[in-house]
């Protein structure tokens, strides 16, 4: 990587003597591979972005779709949104709703998943309802929530919870179902019963599946939130309203800009939170190659 090469050259030049430079090399060597690894990790997403931009620019240049805005004009639009103070508050409102909505969903969904796993009666009665909600598009939930709760924050949160909770509880229940019986029995012989079994054996054993369930819950919650923001007029505008503004004003540029923001948040949350957690959980259990 050019960056590390430069650093190394800098470090070696003032010292002059071989001892010093090798000493500095040794000091630097642990960080150099880390930097290289980070750079390597960034290559794939960067390549994907460049690829999309190239295709987009080409499509624009060839005039495939007469309404398609150019990448440059969308970038300009994003800059305008930032400067006129629309983008940051909208992002803030949306993220706040999603984070709190997600946290509430975990607090409701995880215990619910445990109950579904543990009690046959709960499974018989609640699991089908949760499954049904999982297949229900958020667009169908919004009118319900609005009628029940008005065009309010509560309506938005209700939609997020209804989007996220079923995924989290059903995902957790199925992760618990898949625990090898041998491990459960080992826990029993060791005296892990009741809540201690949950804390010390069941949840750790189900953790890979739980992480997937949380990720899916987040994704569904985020999608539900965007739908809710798009079709309701809550007092505090979020990213979904930016999208709506684009639709109202028939501005393709604004719509594409909003879609890019929504996409970027999804990609970043995956790359910075769920991806690393999942890799860590799998690596601890020896479920992936030694990387």
């Amino acid at each position, binding site marked *: 990587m050019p960056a590390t090469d430069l650093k190394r050259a800098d470090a070696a030049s003032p010292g002059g003597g071989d001892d010093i430079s090798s000493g500095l090399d040794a000091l630097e060597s642990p960080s150099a591979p880390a930097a290289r690894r980070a750079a390597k990790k960034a290559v794939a997403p960067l390549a994907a972005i460049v690829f999309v931009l190239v295709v987009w620019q080409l499509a624009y240049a060839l005039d495939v779709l007469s309404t398609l805005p150019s990448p440059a004009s969308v970038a300009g639009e994003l800059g305008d949104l930032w400067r006129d103070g629309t983008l940051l508050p909208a992002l803030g409102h949306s993220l706040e709703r999603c984070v709190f909505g997600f946290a509430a969903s975990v607090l409701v969904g995880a215990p619910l998943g445990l109950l579904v796993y543990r009690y046959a009666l709960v499974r018989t009665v609640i699991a089908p309802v949760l499954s049904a909600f999982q297949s229900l598009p958020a667009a169908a939930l919004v009118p319900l929530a609005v009628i029940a709760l008005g065009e309010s924050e509560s309506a938005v949160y209700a939609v997020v919870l209804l989007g996220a909770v079923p995924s989290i509880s059903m995902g957790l229940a199925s992760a618990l179902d898949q625990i090898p019986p*041998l*491990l459960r*029995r*080992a826990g*029993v*012989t*060791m*005296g*892990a019963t009741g809540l*201690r079994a949950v804390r*010390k*054996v069941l949840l*750790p*054993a189900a*953790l890979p599946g739980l992480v997937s369930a949380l990720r899916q819950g987040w994704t569904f919650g985020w999608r539900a939130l965007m739908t809710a923001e798009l079709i309701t007029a809550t007092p505090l505008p979020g990213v979904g309203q930016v999208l709506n503004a684009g639709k109202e004003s028939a501005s393709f540029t604004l719509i594409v800009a909003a879609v890019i923001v929504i996409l970027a948040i999804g990609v970043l949350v995956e790359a910075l939170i769920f991806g690393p957690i999942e890799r860590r959980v799998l690596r*601890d*259990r*020896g479920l992936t190659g030694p990387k």
Partner: protein
Amino acid sequence: MTSTSVTRAAAAPAVRLAGATKRFGDALVLDRIDLDVAEGEFVCLLGASGCGKSTLLNLAAGLDRPTAGTVTAGAARPALMFQEHALFPWLTAGGNVELALELGGLDRKERRAEAERLLALVRLSGAHGKRIHEMSGGMRQRVALARALAQGSQLLLMDEPFAALDAITRDVLHEVLTDVWEKRRLSVIFVTHNVREAVRLGQRVVLLSSRPGRIAREWQVGIPYPRRIEDHDVAELSLEITGHLREEIRRHARH
């Protein structure tokens, strides 16, 4: 322990199977097993593959109920060392041992040192921080032994615990096991396919027949401890038992 005088009959047994029968669907796996293991007794269980040894241990551990008959164990919670290591992959070797100690009620402060001691006992000092998937099969079995010992139960049930070990390590662990057994006055049921191992370790060797599993024969092993696997007496009795085991397996194969 220098004498093998059996102290059975006196005290209540550590485990008692009385007419214990186990069916899986139509298959009769264990048929009216009567087996008493006295407090402090070391019993080895031999039998062809699939004859129901693991099933019997599961009954003794209380993990499974007999279809008919009764199983009573004196110890509140027997320690069972499973045929597969059954270690928790989200914990390190030391973490597994410490969890058993924690569930047994040991203080956080004492856990670490006790886990180190138990790992050293199974010749794994320094493996405390190792992940389960980073260890060899034999190392895993030794961690499982350390974890079983960490439970501090008076009744130890072991399902082919040393099958994946090299001969030298196995010899060492035989000594460790008989040592702990004598010091703690444990009661042990030890399942193995290795006749010499059974004679080396047990005060009594029980041979199970196949399909259905019944107690085919028992031997009291009068050889005084400490024994070695290459002892002449051990070899001699092993030869006799092996003859009977062969017979059992042959009968089984004809079915």
